[in-house]
């Protein structure tokens, strides 16, 4: 399996580049997103809808950082992992949207 061999080499190369430094950057990025979310709520009178948009934006960005970098989602060979988790996320969105509308009506 020549292709397999080169794939291993490729991932070795990638991991050599990707030291703990990259994880610290991801950590700082997550911290900043958390800070923005808390500041938006604690920082006084901003438009409520605008705060909601900020909160959702920072939350999804942070999840993206965690999944891609810390859970190695961006590495190759994660197609089925992506299908598995997206299947879950799809059901979640259905539930959340349903529950929100049910509560509003």
């Amino acid at each position, binding site marked *: 399996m020549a292709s397999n061999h080169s794939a291993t080499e490729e991932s070795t190369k990638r991991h050599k580049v990707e030291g703990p430094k990259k994880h610290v950057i991801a*950590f700082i990025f997550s911290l900043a997103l958390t800070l923005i979310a808390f500041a938006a709520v604690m920082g006084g009178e901003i438009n409520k809808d605008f705060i909601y948009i900020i909160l959702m934006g920072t939350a999804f960005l942070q*999840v993206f950082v965690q999944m891609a970098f810390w*859970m190695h989602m961006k590495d190759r060979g994660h197609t*089925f992992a992506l299908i*598995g988790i997206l*299947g879950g996320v799809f*059901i*979640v969105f259905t539930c959340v949207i349903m529950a*929100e509308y049910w509560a509003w009506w």
Partner: protein
Amino acid sequence: MSAHSHVDGQLPHEPEKATLEGRNKVLGFWLFLGGETVLFGTLFSAFLALRHQVLGGPPAEELFNLGLVAAATLILLTSSLTSVFAVHALHTHQVKSLIMWLIITVVLGAGFLGLEIYEFVHYVHEGHGFTTSAFSSSFYTLVGFHGAHVAFGILWISLLIIQLAKKGLNTTTAPKVYIASMYWHFIDVVWVFIFTVVYLMGKVG
């Protein structure tokens, strides 16, 4: 990348994916996390639907103390980082540093859990019991389920630390560490949504 006298022969670079069993464990764990996502999603949707039904109990904006939540968030986020360092140590085959990072992760997890227990006790004293209102029931079910996951993770990783200390790092123990780390990140991901949806959106109203 020196000093792997503990290893019989040379371990591959990613020992968690060296065996078919290891690869299947990682894949199976992703599917499990998909199911966990659904579990938490249903709890989130129940909470979203019921969060304004306070029935005379304290509402979210009076109840929540964001300082405490920020501290818990910081602790859990840091523990996510230390479990990444643990996987990094796994990839460079440094068992001692792997065990050390796992211990730090467990200690931080225990700190988070301690804060959460303190928070819950405080809320009960404020008149926010499990059966007070639909808001309180859905709150405790959602946040408590997450806390139970943290507690389970602490137990799991502690057992892994013991096994690593006894058996060292090999192609059997490596996938276990890897998926435990995935589980820990997932807990942090769920917490991101809890502090956003439950606490911050609760404060906004």
